[in-house]
């Protein structure tokens, strides 16, 4: 065993969001602030209080996946499997190139396969139990994306799923990094959720935070005086993480950035009067990455979109960095909150920001004068980005922060 701690780098990306399928489309849309929130088309939303979502249009799973996988997969799994294929291709790795026990899959999940489950529940109550698909046994399950990616690509190393709502997207990346440090050569990480179906919608409405506005440009306005909740979206991203040294040895063609720091905290009991945990999560991540606040070039905000949570985030950022001292952005204003997929997509946006030297904008938002943050609104901003901080919070008190650094 060597004494060095392996560095974990991102060497492949697969991404599917409402504004872009694949790295190039995603970045072409995101860098210019292309909105993709609209009225729901996947079902008739007229009888629900919230009617807007970020939907992925034009994804035909049958064009990309073997026919055997279609009857056994939810939409979120189909998206994840295709993203995994893209990530392998992007990394220049074929599944068989690395021993199967040296490759694992650690993804995050918020909902599981709600649309698949809804269809089977419908059969259960309208036709009877004998009509329920045998694949319901796993197709709805949180861990199914990890499992299906692992089976399809012969990855039998350390694998699992993290369930901590939106924070899970970063917690999964951190767990993947732990496995790299323990000796795995390659770990898939990230998350996908896609629950824009009536059952999934009702479940999401239960948290009371969904925007009920009907104008797509006025519905999800984090850090705006007019903030009124969030719009959900579907999609996510998968990252191939490798030991930097192993990636160098195999001549990896893309080394997008390093996962250099991570911190996670849990909020105190509501009503306790104690400070929320986000500030500490940020400080832990910076300490883990061994960087000072002044070295962070951009913060990708969680951007909850409800006034109380926006205030907590703005206060945490200001407490660590000082008022207006670091650019903050929330490209998720274009596509909605993707649950487990949101933070992995922000990690992708962060490394692409480094590559281009451009911070994508927070769309539709006018910064409330109550917040002392330098929010990048309206237009993208040219900037040298060497180190980025990605924040994510999960319903119920999860706070996670990841530092992503440039690799020379």
């Amino acid at each position, binding site marked *: 065993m060597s004494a060095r701690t392996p560095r974990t780098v991102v060497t492949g990306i697969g991404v599917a969001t409402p504004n872009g399928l694949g790295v190039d489309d995603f970045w072409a849309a995101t860098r210019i602030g292309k909105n993709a929130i609209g009225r729901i088309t996947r079902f008739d939303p007229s009888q629900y209080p919230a009617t807007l979502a970020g939907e992925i249009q034009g994804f035909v799973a049958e064009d990309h996946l*073997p026919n*055997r996988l*279609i*009857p056994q997969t939810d939409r979120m799994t189909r998206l994840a499997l295709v993203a995994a294929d893209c990530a392998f291709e992007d990394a220049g790795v074929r599944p068989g190139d690395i021993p199967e026990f040296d490759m694992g899959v650690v993804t995050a999940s918020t909902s599981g396969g709600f649309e698949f489950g809804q269809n089977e529940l419908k059969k259960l109550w309208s036709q009877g139990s004998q009509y329920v698909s*045998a694949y319901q*046994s796993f197709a709805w399950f949180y861990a199914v994306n990890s499992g299906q990616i692992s089976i399809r690509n012969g990855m039998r190393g350390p694998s699992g799923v993290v369930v901590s709502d939106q924070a899970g997207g970063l917690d999964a990346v951190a767990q993947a990094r732990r496995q790299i440090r323990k000796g795995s050569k390659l770990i898939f990480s990230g998350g996908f959720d896609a629950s824009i179906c009536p059952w999934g919608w009702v479940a999401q409405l239960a948290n009371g935070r969904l925007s009920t506005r009907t104008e797509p440009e006025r519905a999800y306005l984090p850090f705006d005086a007019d903030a009124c909740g969030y719009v959900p979206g579907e999609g996510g991203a998968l990252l191939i993480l490798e030991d930097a040294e192993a990636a160098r040895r195999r001549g990896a063609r893309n080394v997008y950035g390093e996962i250099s720091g991570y911190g996670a905290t849990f909020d105190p009991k509501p009503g306790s009067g104690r400070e929320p945990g986000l500030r500490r999560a940020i400080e832990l991540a910076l300490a883990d990455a061994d960087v000072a606040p002044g070295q962070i070039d951009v913060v990708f905000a969680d951007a909850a979109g409800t006034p109380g949570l926006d205030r907590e985030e703005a206060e945490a950022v200001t407490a660590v960095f000082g008022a207006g001292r670091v650019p903050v952005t929330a490209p998720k204003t274009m596509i909605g909150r993707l649950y487990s997929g949101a933070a992995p997509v922000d990690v992708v946006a962060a490394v692409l920001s480094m590559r281009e030297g451009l911070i994508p904008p927070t769309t539709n938002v006018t910064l409330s004068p109550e917040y002392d943050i330098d929010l990048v609104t309206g237009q993208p901003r040219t900037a040298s980005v060497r180190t980025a901080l990605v924040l994510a919070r999960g319903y119920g008190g999860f706070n996670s922060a990841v530092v992503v650094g440039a690799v020379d």
Partner: protein
Amino acid sequence: MSDKEFTLEVLRRILLEGAGADEGVDLDGDILDTDFEELGYESLALLETAGRIEREYGIALDDDVFTDNPTPRGLIAAVNAQMRESLAA
């Protein structure tokens, strides 16, 4: 209840509807004596297939029908025998 005969054609349709088909497998080919496993169907795919046959013909199959009959020829015979049995009952 059905007085239809369970045929290879029906089995092909049910397999496709319930579990799809592997890329490398030609279900329209001569598959009567090829093991289901070789055709790319794991236990869950077979469970789904059995459920669909039961639904369509209103019969109950043994839990180990695929263990006892690992090929389409054997399964077709077993399903037809089961149908005759339940008609006679």
